[in-house]
C-alpha cells in the first residue's frame, strides 16, 4: 500500500470518527451564512414591496437599484469581514478542533492503540491535523456557496460577491490555522485535558500580559518613558503576541476596508498562513518526540516543566511585589507582595505538575531561582543600571531631534484630506506627536542637550520623590514655581536609530533655551502644519472667531499674499509675545484636497453618506492663531474687509449664562446661583443668567462682560497666556446667525483677574481665592 493511499484511507477513517464535528461545523456555518443571508434578503425584498406599495421614491435611484444596493450591502456584511458570528465561530472551532483532535494523546489506552500500529507518527499527526482544517474549510466553503447562491437568486450576482467572500474565507481560515496550530502545540506539550485548557489560556495570553506588565513597570520606574511611543510599541507586541489577538486585529483591519479594498488584507493573510505552517511543523516534531507515557500527566515533556514554571513564577513575583508596593509605597508591602506572588504561583504550579497537593513545596531550589530573577527584574527597573532616564545622546551621535511640548503648543485637531483607493476623498486626523516627529528637524545640539539634561535631572528628582512617597507625585507644590511642561523628544541618531524620551521641564528656568528653540525656524516648521502646506495648494482663506467662520478670500493673489504674510508673522513670533498676547482671530488656508473633500461631503450627504468627518468639524481643525503682533496679516485681513478687533455688542446678545466655577463659602451658598431675572433658583446652581431684557443694569453687565471676556476658542489657542477658568460665559445671540442652531452658544472666557464690577457684586465673586486660574508663561498671576 502506498503511503498516499494510506494517508487518504486514514483520513477517511478519521472522518468517520469525527462525523460529529462535520455535522456541528455544517450546522453553525449554515446558520451563520445561508440562513442569515436568506433572512436579510427576505427583509430587503419585503422592504422593496413596501416601497412599491407606499410609492416611496429615492432621489437618483430606482427602487430596483436601491434593492440591489441593499442586498449587496447585506452580502458584504454577511460574507465579508463584518460577520462577527463567523469570527466567533472560527475562534471557538479552532480551540475545539485542536483539543478534540488530539485529546487521544491524553489516554493511555488510545496511545497504545495508535502508536502500536505500523504507521509513522508524522502520518498519524498529519491526518488528524489536516482533517481538522479540512472539515472547517469544507463546511465553510459549502455554506459560503449556498449563501452566494441565496444572494444571486436575489439579484447580487456571484461576480459581485464571490471575490471578497473568498478573501474573507482565506482570512478566516488563516486565523483558524493560526489558533488551531498554537492550541495543537499546547496539546502536544500537555497530557491532560484540564492542563491543556489552562496551558491554552497561558500560551494565548502570556506575551500580551507580559508586555503589559513590562509597559507598566517601565511607566512606573522609568520616568522618561515616552508614553505614546511605549503604547504603540506594546500595542504591536500585544496585538501580534497571540494568534487570537492577531486574528482579531486582522479582521478589524479588514472591517475598516471597503469591499473593493479587501485584497489589501492578503499580505497579512499570507503571513498568518506562513506562521501557521511553522506551527504545524513544530507540532509535528513535538508529536514525534512526545513520549507515549505522557498520557494523563500534566506535562508531556519533563524538560519543559522548569522553564515554564520559571516563565510564570518570575513575573508573578515581580509584579505582585510592585503592585503591593504601589498601594502604600512601603517596602513591607512590597516584600509581602513578592513572597505572596512567588510562593502562591510556585506552589500552584507544583501542585498542578504533580496532581498532588502535598507536593506544593517540591523543587524549592526552583523557587529560589525564580525569586532571584524576580528581584533582578525589580532591581533593573528600580536602579536603572542601563541609565535609561539619564540618556542624552552624545553630540557625535546626534543628528537631529523633534520636540513636542504640549504646554507650549497644544494644537487642536489637525488632519488632511486624502484620496483613498476608491478615488474618493477621506479625512485623516493626524496625531500631533506623529506629525511633529515626521516634520521637525532641530539640528541645534546645544539647545536639545540643555533641554534633555534639564529633563534628565528633573527625572532623577521625580524618581527619588516618587519612590520615596509617591502619592504626592505631580502635585504643584512639589514642582515649585514656574511654567512647567511635558516635553517629548525624538532623538534621531547618525546610525539611523530614533530614541524617544519624555521629560517634565520648567520652561521658566529654561527660558533662554526655549527662546532659542522657538526662534529657530526648525521648531516652528515642524510644529505648525501651516509650514507644510504648498502655496499652490491653497485655494482660499477663512477666518474664525467665536465660532463664526468667514470667508476672507478665494482670490489667488490675495490668498498667496495672506499665506506668505502669515508664515512670516508666525516665524517672527516670540515666546515673549505669546506670553503677553491673546489671538484675535484664527485663519484656515483651505487646500485643494480639502475643498474637494468638502464638495464630496456635501454631495454625499444627500445620499446618506456617513463618514467619520462632518462639515461642522471644519470649525475645529486646521485653524491657526493670529496674534495682535501679526501686523502684515492683520493689515491684509483688513484690506479684505475683515476686522480682527470687531467684537460683539450688547445689541446682538440675547442673554449670557455665567457659569461660576469659583469655590463659594457656606454663607454664599444659595446666593450666587439665584436667578435675579426669573427670581427662581436655577436647576444648575452654578449657572447665573443675565438677560438682555432692556434693563439698564443687565445691559451694563453685558457690556462689561463682552469688553473683558475673549472668545474661548481663541484664548485656548495660546496656553502661554493665562486665563481665568473661574468664570465661563455662554453667550446666546439674538439672531441665530450663521445657521447656529437654537440653544447653541459662544464660549467666552476672561484673560484677566478683572471681573465685570456689576457682575462681581451680583455673584459675590471673591478674587482672593484663585482655584481655576490657568497661569501663563510670565508669572503666577494674570494681567
Amino acid at each position, binding site marked *: *500500500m502506498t503511503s498516499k493511499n*494510506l494517508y487518504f*484511507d*486514514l483520513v477517511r*477513517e478519521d472522518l*468517520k*470518527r469525527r462525523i460529529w464535528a462535520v455535522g456541528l461545523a455544517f450546522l453553525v456555518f449554515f446558520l451563520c451564512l445561508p440562513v442569515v443571508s436568506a433572512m436579510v434578503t427576505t427583509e430587503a425584498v419585503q422592504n422593496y414591496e413596501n416601497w412599491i406599495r407606499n410609492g416611496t421614491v429615492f432621489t437618483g435611484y430606482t427602487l430596483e437599484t436601491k434593492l440591489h444596493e441593499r442586498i449587496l450591502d447585506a452580502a458584504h456584511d454577511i460574507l465579508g469581514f463584518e460577520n462577527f458570528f463567523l469570527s466567533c465561530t472560527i475562534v471557538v472551532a479552532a480551540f475545539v478542533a485542536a483539543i478534540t483532535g488530539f485529546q487521544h494523546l491524553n*489516554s493511555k*489506552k*488510545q*496511545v*497504545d*492503540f495508535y*502508536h*502500536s*500500529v*505500523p*504507521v*509513522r*507518527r508524522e502520518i498519524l499527526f498529519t491526518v488528524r491535523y489536516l482533517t481538522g482544517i479540512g472539515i472547517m474549510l469544507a463546511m465553510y466553503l459549502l455554506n459560503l456557496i449556498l449563501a452566494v447562491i441565496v444572494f444571486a437568486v436575489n439579484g447580487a450576482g456571484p461576480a459581485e460577491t464571490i471575490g471578497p467572500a473568498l478573501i474573507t474565507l482565506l482570512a478566516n481560515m488563516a486565523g483558524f490555522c493560526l489558533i488551531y496550530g498554537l492550541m495543537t502545540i499546547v496539546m502536544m506539550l500537555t497530557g491532560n485535558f484540564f492542563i491543556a485548557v489552562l496551558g491554552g489560556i497561558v500560551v494565548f495570553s502570556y506575551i500580551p500580559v507580559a508586555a503589559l506588565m513590562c509597559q507598566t513597570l517601565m511607566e512606573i520606574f522609568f520616568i522618561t518613558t515616552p508614553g505614546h511611543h511605549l503604547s504603540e510599541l506594546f500595542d504591536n507586541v500585544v496585538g501580534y503576541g497571540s494568534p487570537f489577538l492577531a486574528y482579531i486585529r486582522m479582521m478589524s483591519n479588514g472591517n475598516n476596508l471597503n469591499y473593493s479594498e479587501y485584497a489589501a488584507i492578503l499580505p497579512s493573510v499570507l503571513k498568518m498562513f506562513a506562521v501557521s505552517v511553522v506551527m504545524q511543523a513544530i507540532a509535528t516534531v513535538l508529536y*514525534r518526540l512526545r*513520549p*507515549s*507515557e505522557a498520557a494523563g500527566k500534566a506535562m508531556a515533556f*519533563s524538560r519543559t516543566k522548569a522553564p515554564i514554571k520559571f516563565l510564570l513564577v518570575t513575573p508573578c513575583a515581580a509584579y505582585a511585589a510592585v503592585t503591593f508596593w504601589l498601594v502604600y509605597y512601603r517596602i513591607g508591602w512590597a516584600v509581602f507582595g513578592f513572597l505572596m506572588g512567588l510562593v502562591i504561583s510556585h506552589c500552584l504550579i507544583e501542585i498542578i505538575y504533580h496532581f498532588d497537593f502535598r507536593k506544593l513545596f517540591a523543587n524549592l531550589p526552583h523557587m529560589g531561582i525564580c525569586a532571584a530573577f524576580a528581584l533582578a527584574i525589580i532591581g533593573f527597573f528600580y536602579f536603572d543600571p542601563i541609565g535609561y532616564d539619564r540618556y542624552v545622546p552624545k553630540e557625535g551621535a546626534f543628528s537631529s531631534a523633534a520636540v513636542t511640548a504640549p504646554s507650549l503648543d497644544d494644537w487642536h485637531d489637525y488632519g488632511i484630506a486624502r484620496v483613498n483607493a476608491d478615488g474618493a476623498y477621506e479625512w485623516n486626523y493626524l496625531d500631533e506627536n506623529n506629525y511633529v516627529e515626521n516634520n521637525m528637524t532641530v539640528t541645534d545640539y546645544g539647545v536639545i542637550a540643555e533641554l534633555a539634561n534639564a529633563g534628565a535631572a528633573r527625572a532623577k528628582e521625580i524618581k527619588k520623590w516618587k519612590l520615596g512617597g509617591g502619592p504626592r507625585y505631580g502635585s504643584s507644590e512639589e514642582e515649585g514655581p514656574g511654567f512647567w511642561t511635558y516635553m517629548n523628544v525624538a532623538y534621531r541618531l547618525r546610525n539611523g536609530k530614533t530614541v524617544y524620551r519624555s521629560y517634565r521641564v520648567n520652561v521658566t528656568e529654561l527660558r533662554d533655551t526655549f527662546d532659542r528653540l522657538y526662534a529657530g525656524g526648525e521648531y516652528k516648521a515642524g510644529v505648525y502644519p501651516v509650514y507644510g502646506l504648498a502655496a499652490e495648494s491653497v485655494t482660499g482663506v477663512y477666518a474664525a472667531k467665536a465660532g463664526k467662520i468667514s470667508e476672507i478670500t478665494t482670490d489667488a493673489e490675495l490668498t498667496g499674499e495672506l499665506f506668505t504674510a502669515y508664515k512670516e508673522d508666525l516665524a517672527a513670533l516670540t515666546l515673549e509675545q505669546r506670553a503677553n498676547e491673546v489671538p484675535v482671530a484664527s485663519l484656515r488656508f483651505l487646500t485643494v484636497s480639502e475643498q474637494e473633500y468638502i464638495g464630496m461631503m456635501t454631495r454625499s450627504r444627500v445620499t446618506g453618506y456617513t463618514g467619520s468627518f462632518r462639515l461642522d468639524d471644519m470649525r475645529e481643525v486646521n485653524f491657526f492663531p493670529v496674534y495682535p503682533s501679526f501686523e502684515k496679516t492683520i493689515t491684509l485681513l483688513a484690506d479684505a474687509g475683515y476686522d480682527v478687533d470687531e467684537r460683539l455688542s450688547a445689541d446682538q446678545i440675547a442673554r449670557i449664562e455665567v457659569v461660576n466655577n469659583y469655590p463659594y463659602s457656606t454663607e454664599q451658598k444659595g446666593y450666587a446661583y439665584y436667578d435675579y431675572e426669573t427670581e427662581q433658583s436655577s436647576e444648575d446652581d452654578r449657572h447665573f443668567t443675565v438677560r438682555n431684557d432692556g434693563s439698564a443694569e443687565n445691559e451694563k453687565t453685558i457690556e462689561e462682560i463682552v469688553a473683558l471676556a475673549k472668545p474661548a476658542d481663541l484664548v485656548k489657542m495660546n496656553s502661554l497666556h493665562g486665563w481665568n477658568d473661574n468664570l465661563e460665559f455662554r453667550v446666546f445671540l439674538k439672531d441665530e446667525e450663521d445657521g447656529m442652531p437654537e440653544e447653541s452658544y459662544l464660549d467666552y472666557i476672561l484673560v484677566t483677574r478683572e471681573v465685570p464690577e456689576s457682575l462681581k457684586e451680583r455673584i459675590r465673586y471673591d478674587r482672593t481665592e484663585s482655584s481655576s486660574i490657568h497661569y501663563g508663561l510670565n508669572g503666577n498671576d494674570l494681567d
Partner: protein
Amino acid sequence: MIEAKDLTKKFDDIVAVDHINARIRDGYVFGLIGTNGAGKSTFLRMASGVLKPDGGSIRIDGEDIYENVKAKSRFFYISDDQYFFANATPEEMQKYYRILYPKYDTQRFYRLLESFDLDKRRKIGTFSKGMKKQLSVILGICANTDYIFCDETFDGLDPVMRQAVKSLFANDMAERNLTPIIASHNLRELEDICDHVGLLHKGGILLSKDLDEMKLNIHKIQCVLRAGMKAEDLTGLDIAKTETRGSLLTLTVRGTREEIEDCMRSHEPLFFETIPLSLEEIFISETEVAGYDIKKLIL
C-alpha cells in the same frame, strides 16, 4: 527473532524495566510472567513500539522497533485494555486494521466472528469484557502478522474460550509460524501453552528458560525408604526440596530422569516413582534457587 538487550525503561524515578536481556525465538510461545508492576506491560509496550526505551534495545530480526513501520507491521499488539473506536462495531474495527495490515484476512475474520458467536454489527461498547478480549484476539490473529503480543489477554476468558484461543494460536503457529508473546500474572494460564517462559520481577528478569528444558532437568520423586534411612542419606541426588508425610517422602530433584532413577535404585528404597512437575512447581524450585519465594512473586 525478537531480542532485548539491556532493555531499560524508567517512568520518572521508577525503573519499570531494568536492563532486561531476552530472546524470543520465532515459532514458539513466549510467556511473560510476573506480578503487577513487574514490568510485563512496559516490556510489551516497548516491544510494540509504543514506548521508546530509555536504554538498551529491543529489535525484531536486528531492526529497532520504535518508529520503524517495517518492524511494526510484523506484529499485532493487544493491550491489557484494548481500545476500540467509540460506537464502533467489529466490522468497522476490522476495516480500520485492514488498512494498516496488508495481509489482513477478512474472510477468516468473519468466520472466526461467527465461530466465536460475535455479532459483526453489534457495537463493541455493549460487549462483555471477555467478548472484547475474544474480539481483540480475532482482530489480531487475522492481521496475519509474524508476532502477536497479548497483554493479560487470557484474563477474563472463560476456560472454554481460553482453550479456543489457544487452539487458534496453535493452528497459526503450525500453519504460518506465528510467535505469540503472552504476558500474564497467572502462571496457570500459561502452563499448557508456553514453550519458553520469562519471569519478570521488579523490572528485571529472574529467569528465562524453555519449559522442556526445565522439565527435563527437574523431577519429583515419591518414595518410601528403608527403615532408618533419611532423605539426607540419598547421596548422589541434587535434592531441591523434601516433603515428608509419614514414611512417604516427596523429593524435588534436579537432573535427568535416567540419572535420578539410577541413583534411587542404587539406594534400594522400598518404593519409588517419578511423577511430572507442574509449571508452578518447576518455578517454585527454580526461583528458590535464585533466592526468591515464588509464592510471593506470582501465586
